[in-house]
């Protein structure tokens, strides 16, 4: 099936960016119209991306909507796109969050609107590119390309310490991804040595690995895994590589935080799942105990530090460290439940943390402060805000029937039954405390911000949500409930791809090959 849907999806925002620039050059252009153009293009992207759902699921693990052209012939780089169960919902998450992010900048962004919206649109294009690229070089290009707009978004439209935060963000992530580039190139040469043809094509690479045409020596695999994992773990961020995150999230403008938390962090876990698991299965198993340990530390550490933050936004930012720790834990459990749960948790974290940042942005716009101690008793003047904010917080806490629970429960189920580490139950018990801590920090924050009697004059006069703000959060709210009550449609479409990845991971040899007994528990799920 040759379809250009993915290319269209990547290009749509770029065209939108172009349109914005052209419009601003026309005489009589008004700056206030730019946001409408951006909104139109991002909404269109979302609608177009919905087409991806068709034909998904049904036990099909293959890449769909594939496009495969030669790109840089000299080095064998290809323009290879495709979407499977793993990337499908992440693309949709991106296209869904984008119009919301644009809408959240409606009044918050007053200066340099042209640059702002152009950057946002370019960012979207890069993010979609990351999730659908099946050529390592192309992936790398998009991965890096997403960095630049975000760097400027934080650095230009951010808060007080924006420059520090932006530079920190850039260096952290760039260092990681450069190592990955080294790994990509090494992989290219390894493939060349084995087959005589150098390639960056992920599908080709995995195929040659599966069929044993190409073998990566354990030593090389070890280092390659590290090179890729470092890039991704910084992005996730996995403890102790997380310190860029609180600064970046806090200083970024609301839309930036939403996209950062909602999509950019997922690039890390997506990368681990797609590339580390797909290309280096043996090393993945080897590293699992370390990764799981770091993930569990991150879960607890992130939650504890979130608890003591005086700044609401920073609190939400640290909570991401904790939640993303769950994702890594689920991925490296190498069980069907754990990995499905991890993917689900990625989506659900994007939705609920995205919503939380929106809410924080709303009160920041009203009061120009994010300090918890400046708020209190918002439930009286802002009942709708409070109600929805509480729901979003509860979803982040993992209340059953809201989205957060399904993912976290599946992850814990997976990690309990996992044989990737010894004493998996201890790991699960420790990770499980993260759910307690989540309640502590979120509810304590709610108590001091939303409830309580202490309310200053300024708080008492705040206006409740306006129509635009309702429109912003409503889709996310609906999604929270839907994902919590009826996760079936999501899980059924991710199952086949996850299972294919997992089977390869626990047993990289082709079917029929000897020595399968050593693979970590493959028997529990059937």
């Amino acid at each position: 099936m040759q379809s250009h849907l993915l290319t269209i999806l990547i290009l749509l925002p770029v065209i939108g960016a172009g349109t914005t620039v052209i419009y601003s050059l026309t005489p009589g252009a008004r700056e206030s119209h730019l946001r409408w153009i951006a909104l139109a293009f991002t909404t269109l992207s979302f609608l177009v991306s919905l087409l991806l759902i068709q034909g998904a699921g049904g036990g099909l693990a293959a890449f769909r909507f594939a496009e495969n052209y030669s790109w840089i012939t000299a080095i064998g780089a290809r323009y290879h796109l495709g979407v499977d169960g793993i990337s499908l919902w992440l693309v949709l998450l991106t296209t869904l969050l984008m119009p919301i992010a644009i809408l959240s900048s409606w009044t918050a962004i007053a200066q340099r609107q042209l640059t702002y919206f152009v950057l946002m649109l370019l960012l979207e294009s890069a993010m979609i590119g990351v999730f659908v690229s099946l050529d390592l070089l192309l992936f790398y290009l998009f991965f890096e390309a997403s960095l630049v707009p975000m760097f400027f978004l934080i650095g230009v439209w951010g808060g007080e310490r924006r420059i520090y935060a932006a530079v920190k963000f850039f260096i952290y992530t760039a260092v990681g991804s450069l190592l990955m580039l080294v790994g990509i190139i090494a992989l290219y040469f390894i493939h060349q040595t084995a087959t005589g043809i150098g390639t960056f094509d992920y599908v080709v690479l995995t195929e040659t690995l599966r069929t044993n045409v190409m073998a990566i020596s354990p030593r090389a695999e070890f280092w390659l895994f590290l090179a890729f994992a470092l890039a991704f773990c910084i992005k996730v961020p996995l403890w102790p590589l997380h310190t860029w995150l609180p600064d970046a999230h806090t200083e970024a403008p609301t839309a930036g935080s939403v996209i950062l938390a909602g999509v950019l962090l997922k690039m890390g876990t997506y990368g681990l799942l797609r590339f580390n698991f797909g290309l280096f299965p043996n090393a993945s198993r080897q590293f699992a105990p370390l990764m799981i340990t770091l993930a569990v530390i991150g879960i607890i550490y992130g939650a504890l530090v979130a608890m003591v933050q005086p700044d609401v936004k920073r609190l939400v930012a640290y909570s991401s460290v904790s939640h993303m720790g769950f994702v890594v834990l689920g991925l490296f459990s190498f069980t069907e439940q754990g990995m499905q749960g991890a993917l689900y948790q990625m989506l659900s974290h994007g939705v609920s943390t995205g919503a939380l940042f929106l809410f924080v942005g709303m009160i920041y716009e009203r009061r120009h402060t994010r300090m918890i101690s400046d708020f209190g008793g918002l439930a009286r003047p802002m009942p709708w805000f409070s109600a929805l904010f509480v729901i979003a917080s509860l979803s982040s806490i993992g209340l059953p029937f809201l989205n957060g629970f399904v993912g976290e429960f599946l992850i814990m189920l997976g990690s309990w039954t996992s044989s990737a580490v010894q004493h998996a139950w201890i790991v699960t018990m420790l990770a499980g405390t993260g759910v307690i801590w989540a309640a502590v920090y979120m509810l304590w924050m709610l108590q001091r911000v939303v409830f309580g009697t202490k309310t200053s004059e300024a708080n008492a006069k705040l206006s409740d949500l306006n129509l635009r703000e309702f429109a912003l959060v409503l889709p996310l709210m609906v999604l929270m409930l839907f994902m919590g009550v009826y996760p079936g449609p999501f899980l059924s479409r991710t199952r086949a791809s996850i299972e294919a990845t997992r089977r390869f991971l626990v047993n990289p040899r082709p079917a029929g090959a000897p020595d399968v007994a050593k693979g970590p528990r493959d028997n529990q799920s059937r």
Partner: protein
Amino acid sequence: MQTNLLSLIIFAPLAGALINWLIGRRVRNERFIGVVACASVGVSTIVALYLTLRSDGALRATQPVMDHLWTWVQVGAFRADFGLAMDRLSGIYALFVTFVGFLIHVFATGYMHGDRGYYRFFAYLNLFMFAMLTLVLADNLLLMFVGWEGVGLCSYLLIGFYLDKEEAAPAAKKAFIANRVGDWGFVLGILLLFWLTSHAGKPSISFFDKTGVTSALATVASLPMDGFTWHAIFAGGLTSVAILLFIGATGKSAQIPLFVWLPDAMAGPTPVSALIHAATMVTAGVYMVVRCSAIFTHAPFAMFIVAIIGAATALFAATIGLAQNDIKKVLAYSTISQLGYMFMACGVGAFVAAIFHVMMHAFFKAQLFLGSGSVIHGMHHEQDMRRMGGLRKYMPVTWLTMCAGWLAICGIPIWAGFFSKDEILWKTWSAGSPGIPPGLNKALWFIGAVTALLTAIYMTRLMVMTFWGGERFRAEHVEHVDEHDHGHLAHTPHESPLSMTIPLIVLALLSTVGGLVGVPYALSSLTGGHPENYFERTLQPVVSEVPGQSAGSGEATTLHWLSPPPQPVDGKPAVTVVKADHGETIPSAEEISQERIFTLISVLIALTGISIGWFMFKNQPLRRLPRLLENRYYVDEIYDATIIRPILVISREGLWKVFDIGVIDGLLHSLGRTVVNFGQTLRYMQIGFVRVYAAIILAGAIVIIGYFAYNGVHVLQFLTR
């Protein structure tokens, strides 16, 4: 049997909640809101009555009434449905939850009159009913957990309902977090149960057999029993499951060590205290333990722990209850204490007695709480018993009905609590299960008896301080006249309106005669006639029996887990027809006489307690009690100093300020500086090998980054100038 009516029981209150939340907030008409709220629960009540009591209803059938709605989560072998099931246990539970819930809703329409958040209150209250009934009717552990957390959420929202009350928000948070600690155990228990059933080849967390799912409890029942040793707790077997689930129960049902949230929860409106924190939600832990009795009976050490924790909580809370002055706090500690009783019963294997007490407790404690609500209402939101006294003159209905609740909780014959408490004490004394070492049952009985004595004392104190003696509200009130806009005379206590007194009367009646559904053989045989314990007979088949429980009959006990043979419950079998093979045995003659003696002892204890309370407090209602008790053994302070403070300090000073900002960032900052210097030297490297191109690219990139780090700052500063 499959019927969609079952889902009506849970969805009617949900619909009520939505209507009140969305429409009620606009209408702002108390009558509309009240009717919607009560009617929706009324629908549940009627459907529950219909489904349980009709000829092939849940209480008579041997198979549960099922209603499968959709498969909620299914990944790999794990499957959790949104499916409901009503068997005898959940049938009885649903019955009294909906009925008591309905009465409390009616009461609340009067109690909450004039409150700004009227619609919000009833929306939450209906939502609570939805969650509670989901918990009760869930056909698997995970859906039960949904209800479990759902009731916790509603409890959270309702405790924090009064936005103007300083202590409400912290109390709400505390309740949720304490429950969360328990829920941690619950979730892990589910995981471990799934793991164990997977290893047994039948992965499941379902309570019942369904298409494609085997009952996890049946699977558990086929496993060998764990040994009685503390090692079993950590062995990852059934004892571990039981302990983990019980941790969940200690949170929800306010047992040691997680009980601290319940007294604070009294910051919520009184109908909430009656419904959630006395009659229904807090007993969910007991329900869960009884529902999972198959697991517990296979884990003797867990049973031992349950019994010990239950007994300890019963006694501990009763002593605190003695010295409290807030009328609701007394009742709160009393609830904790009574819940302890129920767990003690579970621990000795008397699951039916536990449920019996749950139901009786729902009647009389709801009555007492609503009565206290009526008092608080009549006293214009005064809760301190030191400023009450002599109210029986002003509030005769409240007084009389509360007397019924009082006699019931003290255990005076024919009142509800007498039968249930007596049964627990008797079953404890005669317990002989693997989880109860010889002698322990006697010790537990003694603790139970002392608790019963204390219960009678503090309840009598409550009644005396509130309804008898001098009218202390007048003298006290003078100082406060200026603070309130209504004058002195307006503050005379008054009887509550009909909407409040009618539920009081109904509950008082239930507290008086409700116990007759479970009259033990030893007593009913005194009067001849129809000597059958209906309650036990109905429930016994659906709970697991502890091996050796009915040792008194001398015959080998047949273990039957969840598949009782059909039995003529509705017929009127003669005594001799009662067959041993479905769990009910006729006690031997000496057992009967012993049970009668113990009944007599219970009555004497209750009467002694009442007399002590009466003579101690009748003339000296303000008598000082030990400060240690008044300050609740300083448990909150101890938790604060040993757990909460240290964690906060470590997180703030240690993890965040020292580690995050100091160590990690500090390291990075110094690294950044060296990288830039290092980059300078890299330039001189001349390497001609293709293989290390990668390294050069890396090095070059680092230089670029270093450059960028320096200059990016200037670019940004330029852009933002």
